[in-house]
C-alpha cells in the first residue's frame, strides 16, 4: 500500500500530490530527487524502489515526469509500481498527453481522480472508461448530479447497463509484434511473438461473447482435429472481463465485453521466427576522414504480402557529419539525435531485395571514447493481412437477450515489436555479407 502519491517534474518539484495515510509526512516528497542525485553521484544505479531512513520510495518515469509513491511499510511493490503506470494510463486517456502543462491545467480533476483511484493506500477503480462516467471535465455543466455508476462495484465492473447502438458491430484486430535479435553471425539469438487481440465493441445491452481461435490446446482437450494449422500459445493474458476459471477448464474464451475499445487478450509465442525483414550493413571506416555504409534489405516473406512503412535505423558514429545517400528505393535521412540514419521504404514487396549506400565525413580529431556506437540495426514495419504465428479467429459468437444480429469484422496485422534488432553491421573485412538465397 502507498501512503502518498505524487507527480514530480524532472527537477523533483512536486506538481501535485495526495496523501492517503498519515505515517509519511508530505515533505518527504521533496527529498526524492536529492536522494536520486546522491545515488547517481555514488556511481550506483537508481532502481525503481529504494529505501532511505525508513521511507520506501517507489517511482516510475513517464516522459518528463516522475510518478512517486511513498510507504513506510513492507509494501506490495509490484502493485504500487503497476498502479503508478495505471495512473499515467488514466491521465493520458483523460488529457491525451500527460505532461507538466496538462497537470497544471487540470489539477482539480486529477485530485478527484486520485481520490477515486486509491483509498487509504489501496488501489480502487482504475478503469478510465468507468471513471469517465462520473468524473468529467464538464461536471459543473451537468444538470443532474453524477452518481456512482453501478459498474464500479458490479461483478461486471467494466460495463454499464443500458448501452444502445443502432447498428451492432464488433471489430477485432489481431496484432502480432515480433521481437527478434540477430547476432553478429547472422543467427537468430532470441525471438518471440507478442500477440494482442484488440476489440472495438459497439453492442447494445449486456451481450455474451465467445471467441474461438485455432488454439492447439483446445483442440487437444476436446479431441477434435484442427482444420489447417493450430497454434500453441505459451502464455495468454486476458482482460478482466474474461472468465479465467472457464478458460482454465475448457479453454473457452467467454466474456461480457466493455463498451468501445479495449484489449481483450494478449499472448506470447517463443517459437523461432525467421527475420521477416533482413537487414545487413557493410561498414568501411577510415578513421579521421570518412565512413561508408552499404546496406542491404531483403523481404523474407511470401510474395503476396507487402510490408508498409518500413524504417531501417542504421547506427553511425556520433561525430559523423556531411551525410550523402544513394538508395535504389525509398528515401534516406540522417537522424543525428538518434546517432543513426533512417532508410524509409513506403512499400516493400515480399521476396524483394534492395541496396543503399551512405557516406559520412568524420572529424580528423579522434573522439574521446574508445568504444564506438555498438547499437544494433533496428527495423520498423507493418505487414497487413498476415500473422506470423498463423493464429486465426474461427468464430465470434454474440448472444444478447434481445436477440439482435451483430457483425464481427476481423483484421490481421504483423509488425515489429519494441525490440527488432540485428547486430549485422560488419566492419569491412570482419565478416562476409551473407549471400541471398
Amino acid at each position, binding site marked *: 500500500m502507498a501512503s502518498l502519491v505524487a507527480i514530480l517534474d524532472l527537477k523533483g518539484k*512536486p*506538481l501535485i500530490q495526495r496523501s492517503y*495515510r498519515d505515517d509519511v509526512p508530505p515533505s518527504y516528497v521533496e527529498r526524492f530527487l536529492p536522494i536520486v542525485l546522491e545515488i547517481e553521484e*555514488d*556511481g*550506483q*544505479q537508481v*532502481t*525503481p*524502489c529504494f*529505501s532511505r531512513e*525508513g521511507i*520506501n520510495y517507489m*517511482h*516510475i*518515469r513517464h516522459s518528463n515526469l516522475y510518478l512517486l509513491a511513498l510507504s*513506510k511499510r*513492507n509494501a*506490495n*511493490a*509490484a*502493485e504500487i*509500481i*503497476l*498502479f*503508478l503506470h495505471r495512473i499515467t494510463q488514466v491521465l493520458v486517456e483523460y488529457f491525451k498527453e500527460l505532461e507538466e502543462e496538462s497537470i497544471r491545467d487540470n489539477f*482539480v480533476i486529477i*485530485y478527484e481522480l486520485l481520490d477515486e483511484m486509491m*483509498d*487509504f493506500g*489501496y488501489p480502487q477503480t482504475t478503469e478510465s472508461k468507468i471513471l469517465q462516467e462520473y468524473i468529467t471535465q464538464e461536471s459543473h455543466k451537468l444538470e443532474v*448530479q*453524477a452518481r*456512482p455508476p453501478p459498474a464500479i462495484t458490479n*461483478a461486471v*465492473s467494466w460495463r454499464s447497463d443500458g448501452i444502445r447502438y443502432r447498428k451492432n458491430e464488433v471489430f477485432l484486430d489481431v496484432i502480432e509484434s515480433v521481437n527478434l*535479435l540477430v547476432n553478429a*553471425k547472422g543467427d537468430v*539469438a*532470441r525471438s518471440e511473438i507478442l500477440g494482442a487481440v484488440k476489440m472495438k465493441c459497439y453492442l447494445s445491452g449486456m451481450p455474451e461473447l465467445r471467441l474461438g481461435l485455432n488454439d492447439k490446446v483446445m483442440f487437444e482437450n476436446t479431441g477434435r482435429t484442427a482444420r489447417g494449422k493450430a497454434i500453441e500459445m505459451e*502464455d*495468454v*493474458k*486476458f*482482460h*478482466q472481463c474474461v*472468465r*479465467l476459471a472457464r*478458460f482454465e477448464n475448457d479453454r473457452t474464451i467467454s466474456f461480457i465485453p466493455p463498451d468501445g475499445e479495449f*484489449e481483450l*487478450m494478449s499472448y*506470447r509465442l*517463443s517459437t523461432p521466427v525467421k527475420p521477416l525483414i533482413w537487414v545487413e550493413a557493410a561498414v568501411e571506416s577510415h578513421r579521421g576522414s570518412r565512413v561508408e555504409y552499404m546496406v542491404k534489405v531483403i523481404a523474407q516473406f511470401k510474395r503476396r504480402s507487402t510490408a508498409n512503412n518500413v524504417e531501417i535505423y542504421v547506427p553511425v558514429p556520433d561525430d559523423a557529419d556531411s551525410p550523402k545517400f544513394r538508395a535504389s528505393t525509398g528515401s534516406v535521412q540522417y537522424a543525428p539525435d538518434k546517432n543513426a540514419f533512417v532508410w524509409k521504404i513506403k512499400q516493400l514487396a515480399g521476396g524483394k531485395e534492395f541496396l543503399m549506400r551512405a557516406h559520412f565525413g568524420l572529424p580528423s580529431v579522434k573522439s574521446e*571514447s574508445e*568504444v564506438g556506437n*555498438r547499437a*544494433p540495426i533496428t527495423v520498423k514495419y507493418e505487414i497487413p493481412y498476415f500473422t506470423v504465428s498463423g493464429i486465426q479467429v474461427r468464430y465470434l459468437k454474440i448472444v444478447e437477450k434481445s436477440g439482435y444480429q451483430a457483425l464481427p469484422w476481423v483484421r490481421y496485422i504483423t509488425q515489429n515489436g519494441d*525490440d527488432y*534488432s540485428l*547486430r549485422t553491421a560488419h566492419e569491412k573485412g570482419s565478416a562476409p555479407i551473407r549471400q541471398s538465397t
Partner: protein
Amino acid sequence: MSSRAPRKGENYELSVDLNSGYAEKRKDAIKRVIASMTVGKDVSGLFPDVLKNMQTEDLEQKKLVYLYLMNYAKTQPELVILAVNTFVKDSDDPNPLVRALAIRTMGVLRAEKIIDYLCDPLAKALRDENPYVRKTASLCVAKLYDLKPELVIENGFLEQLRDMIADSNPMVVANTVAALTDIHNAASARPSSSTSDPGIFIISPTILNRLLIALNECSEWGRIAILNALARYQAQDEKESDHICERVVPQLQHANGSVVLAAVKVVMIHMRGVRREDLTKQLIRKMAPPLVTLLSSPAEVQWVALRNINLLLQKRPETLSTEIRVFFCKYNDPLYVKVEKLDIMVRLANESNVDALLSELKEYASEVDVDFVRKSVKCIGQTAVKIDAAAERCVHVLLDLIDTRVTYVVQEAIVVMKDIFRKYPSTYEGVIPTLCANLDELDEPEAKASLIWIIGEYANKIDNADELLNIFVDTFVEESYSVQLQTLTAVVKLFLKKPDSSQGIVQLILNKATACDSPDVRDRAYIYWRLLSTDPGAAKAVVLANRPPISIPRTTVSSALLEELLGEISNLTSVYHKPAETFVGMGRVGVESVQHKEATFNDEDPFSAKKALQTVAAGQYVENLLDFGNEATLDGQPTGLAATEVLTQPAAANLMAGVSANPLDDLVSIFAAPSTNVISSASPPAPPTQHQQEDLLGLF
C-alpha cells in the same frame, strides 16, 4: 475569530471572493485556493471562509472543499468541528457518491473532534444498500482503527467487518479483506499483541471458501487483497493445499502483473503442503509462461519481476531452465534491468545453453556502458566457475576481450581470471604471460591485487616473477592497502618457492610493510616475519596451504530467509532481498530479531544463521561485503566472484560500491570473516585461517 489574513494580498482577495454573493465566483475562488495549496502556498488562514462553501449541491465544489479540509484539518483542529454538521448530513444524502465521499473524507481528517461524530454515520454506511458506500465504509473502519482502535472495538465494527466477508458484492468483500488485513497488521505490530487481540484476523476455512469465490469476480486490485489474505491462510491438510493451488492457478492468466505475482506467491506458499509430485510439477510448469510474459512489461515492472524471479529460481531453478533467451538484454533496457537479467542468466546457465550465453556476454562486453561491461565480464567468470565443461571456452572469450586493450575490460578480465585460477588450479597457466603483458595498464587496486596474487601463486612457473613483483615492491608505499597485502603475500610465496633468488626482495618488503601505517598490513608482515624466522616449515604450511576451491552458491540468502522472502513475493522485502525489519520501523532491531527468527525457523543448516546475519548487516548499512574479512585469510582473496555472490542488496546498487567507511565494519566483519570459506564452498574452514588467528593472538 481565528487569525485572519491581513486586509490585502492574495489571501485577502480570495477571502473576499469566497464570501461573494455569486456562486460562480465562490467556486472559482475555491479553485484558486486549491491551486495555491497545490503549489505549496499556505492558505490555511482561509479555513473558515472555505468551510462556508461546504454545503452545496455542486459535487465538484464539495469535493474541492473536502480536499481542502483533508489538508488543513490538522492545522485548525478547533475549527474542524464546524464541518461536522455538513459531514453528518452528507452521509445521509440520497446520492451514494456523496454518502461515500463524506465517509471517506471524515476518515482521513484525523481530528479527534471529528472522530467522535464518525461512528454513527460509519455504522450506517457499513449497512448501506449501495455497495459503493459499503466498500468505502469498510476501509474507513481501518482508518478509524489506525486512529483510535478502542472506538472500533467498542462499536463492534470488527464483528461487522467479519460479517461483510459474506457480502454479496465481490468488491465489498475485497475491501473488507483489505481493511481486516490492515487492522491485523497494525494489531500484531503492537509489542503487547497476543492472539486474543480483537484486531487479529484469523482466516477460517469458511472465510477461505468465501474468498476463493470472490476471487474470480472482483476487480484486479481486489484480487490482490484477497490473494494476500490467502497467502496467510494455514492449510489444514494436504487436500486443502491442493485445492487452494488449483483455485488460484487461473489467476496466473490475469493481465495485471501484480495479480500474477500475488498468485505466484500464494502458489509458492501452499505448494509447501502439496505432496503430489505431479501436481507440484504441473504448478511449476504453469508458473513459467506468466513469469516470462512479465518481461514484456514496462521497465520498472520488469525490474520488480526480475528481482522476484531471481528468488524463485534460487528455490526452484527448474522453473525457467529452458528460457534463458528471454533474459537476453535488449539494447535499450535500462541498466538496472540489464544487471538483474545478467544475474538470472548466470543462474540459468547450463551446458546446453552456455554457447549462446557466452556469445551474448561477449557482445555486452563491447558495449559502451562501463558498469554493464564490467558486470558482463564478471558473468563470464561466474559461468566458468559454474560450468566446468565451459571453463575453457570462457577463458578464450576473456582472452579475446583482453585483446581489445580497453583498460576497464582488461582489468575486469584479470580479476575474473584470478577466480578461474582459484577454481581450476594449474589448468590455464598458459594464459599467464598474456595477463602479465598487461601489467602496465592496470590502475585499479582489485585488478592489481588479482594479478599479483596470480604471480605469487604461480611464482615457480614464472621465470621473471621476481622482476614483476619488484615493480610493485618499488611502488609499495603508494599502493592501496589491498594491493600492499597482496604484494606482501606474493613476495613471501615467491621466497618460499624460490628461496635462493629472492632473499633480498623478501627482506625489502618486510621492512617496508612493517613500517606501513595500516595495522593490517603491518600485522601480517610481522606474522610472516616471525613465521619465516622461527619455523620456515610452518610458514610453508600456512602460506602455501591448499585453499578450498570456490563455487557459485545456489542461493544468495540463507535458506530460512529465502523461505521468508518467497512468502512475501511482490513485496518490497522480496524486491530488496532483505528481511522487512531491516528497512521498516526503527531500522535498529535487525540483528537480534533475525537471530530470534533463526531460532524459530529451526533450520538445520548451521551456516544460514551466519548468512542471515550478514544479510542484515549488509542490508542495514548497504555496504559491500567485498570489503569484509580480508584480514582473516592469509591469501586474502575473498573479493571477486566468491564474495559477490553474498551480496544481497539489488545488484545494480553494488556495481560500483565503494570502499566502506563505516565504523561498524569491524563489527560486521566478525560475522563475515569466518564465513569466507562458507561462501566459497561450505567446506570446513581452511587451516591457514586458524593458524593465523592463533598467531595473531600470540602477538599480543
